[in-house]
């Protein structure tokens, strides 16, 4: 176990380094640099030069790479061109917002998926099952922005129940305690629902299929033969085994937790990683893009590692 973990961490570090290097190369070789962001023609050339020197862009590429890598290793990802602050500070500020949004969304997606699949399994191929299959297929096929806009159109514009964007209203921003919390919850409802709706289709479809297979396994039949009710056999015996591969699926969505559902954040103006990265891409804020990509890659590596470890703990048949 220990050797396995060390090996995986080593491989993960190499991976992060590779991704960082490739992204750095892409960023550096892309046409235009920081100085081309200064589009105002009245800025004198000397000021441009000084600006380039301040950001270290006048040095040769290998030297820039070396010093960037050196500081990245110590946890310093450079300074954002747009925010004029440390990249780590910018990311640190928005990351909690994204984690809040996406973890709630994932929880809704999982809970909804399990509940729907269990309802379907009560009478497989019955009317209820067919309708839920159709609904989950549609949810699976809808583009995220479509769901988000539909929710806004219906619940904000038509019914006026929930705010269409941002994390806090002006009053909420000023308030403390309960009022602030209530305001936050109100703003969370629509984006979390949007994440849940787009994700629930995949989870339900997957879980229904594996429960249908699992139901016919000998251990489930044995449980039924011992006098266990159909419902208990399904929930207590079949479900845990059907849930196992979901661990891998969830490990794969850890990067989603960090990078956030970019589209949801953009549509709902949610101040999170996805929106910041979108802004960085549009404004060509390369240090921020680079830093965000590295943080997301670390999330992928850690996610896969945790998923494999969790799988081995949940399923003793798997040896690491």
């Amino acid at each position, binding site marked *: 176990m220990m050797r396995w973990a060390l090996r995986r961490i080593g491989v993960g570090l190499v*991976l992060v380094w*590779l*991704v960082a290097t*490739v*992204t750095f190369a*892409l*960023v550096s070789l*892309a*046409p235009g640099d920081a100085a081309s962001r200064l589009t105002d023609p009245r800025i004198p050339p000397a000021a441009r030069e000084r600006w380039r020197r301040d950001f270290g862009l006048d040095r040769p590429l290998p030297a820039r790479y070396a010093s960037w890598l050196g500081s990245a290793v110590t946890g310093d990802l450079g300074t954002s061109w747009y925010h004029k602050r440390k990249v780590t500070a910018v990311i640190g500020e928005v990351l909690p917002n994204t984690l809040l949004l996406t973890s709630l969304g994932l929880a809704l997606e999982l809970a909804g998926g399990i509940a729907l699949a269990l309802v379907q399994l009560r009478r497989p191929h019955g009317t209820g099952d067919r309708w839920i299959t159709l609904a989950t*297929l*549609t949810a*699976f*096929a*809808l*583009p*995220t*922005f*479509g769901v988000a*806009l*539909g929710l*806004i*159109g219906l619940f904000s*514009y038509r019914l006026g129940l929930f705010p269409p964007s941002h994390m806090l209203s002006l009053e909420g921003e000023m308030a403390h305690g309960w009022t602030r919390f209530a305001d936050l919850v109100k703003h969370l409802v629509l984006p979390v629902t949007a994440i849940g709706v787009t994700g629930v289709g995949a989870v339900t479809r997957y879980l229904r299929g594996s429960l249908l297979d699992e139901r016919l396994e000998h251990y489930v039949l044995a449980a039924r033969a011992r006098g266990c009710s159909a419902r208990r056999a399904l929930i207590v015996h079949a479900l845990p085994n059907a849930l196992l591969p979901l661990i891998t699926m969830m490990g794969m969505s850890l*990067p989603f937790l960090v*990078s956030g559902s*970019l*589209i949801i954040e*953009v*549509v709902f103006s949610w101040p999170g990683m996805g929106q910041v*990265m*979108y802004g960085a*891409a*549009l404004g*060509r804020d390369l240090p921020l*893009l680079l830093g*965000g*990509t590295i943080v*997301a*890659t670390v*999330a*992928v*590596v850690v996610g*896969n590692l945790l998923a494999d470890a969790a799988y081995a703990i949940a399923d003793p048949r798997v040896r690491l």
Partner: protein
Amino acid sequence: MSVFVRSARWPRRLRVGACLLAALAIVAVCGPWFTADPSAIVDPRATALLPPGSQRVVLELRDGTGVAGEAARQAEGFWVLSRRGAEEKIPAADVTAVSTRRFWLGTDTVGRDVLARLLSGARVSLAVGGLALAVALILGVGAGLASGWTGGIADAVLMRIVDALLAVPMLFLLLFLAAVFRPSLAALIAVLGFSSWMGVARLVRGQVLSLKEREFVLAARAIGASPWRIAFVHLLPNALTPVAQDGALRLGDLILVEASLSFLGLGVQPPTPSWGNMVADGQAVLANAWWLSFLPVALVALTVIAAALVADGLQEIARRDAAVR
């Protein structure tokens, strides 16, 4: 024992999905021949943001432009055009033709015909999705075959590359590439294809690894078939059903990613219509012009549903094959 054996009856899901996909493809190819020019703006004063089914009178003028209104009548050498409560007099001599035009699915913010834009958007969206899938399949099948069939160092190297690429946060990379190099359609297809071949490669490798231990491969080798022949004539056809199933799901995925990128303004660039960028146009007027956002979203969903049905059907066939063995 695969989809392509004629005696094997296709499951209903597969038939429905395949018919839907075929219908969408036919509509995308032929539709634009029968509709108006998708980028033509007749007269924004009268034709902007019309709901589906609206009808307007269009007067074509001698200088090649046109004006439109709710109704027009002829009086004393003039055409009197009523438009949003006001009337405009146009000398009859300037008018070359008068016609009524129905906008079956309404118009967008600047008065372009939504039906025409949806249909030529279908061409763009389906072509980008389909061609990106082709790129991914060619790369993935090639890498998977090479890796699984030759084994050894080539296998190890290829699979490490696949692992590394799978760890790259693709959405950020796409975002970055799209922002730095304003994408042409060809670049968009290449980027989408290059970012999604890894799954195909893994799948094909797995199939090849299990197939190459089977007797028919041994038999082929015994009668002196070359490794190339075994790979392409014996191994690949036997791996087709799972690859086709994966490809169908991937097609849906690629269409969703293209729509999302275009929605964010980083995919297909206006004025070329695609389903994604049409929704982006409609977003600002969501509250009073639902059809601008709803219709393209519905078409994306329909395409992805069709692809998912095909994938489900193929999986059923694969399961049936496995039961026969």
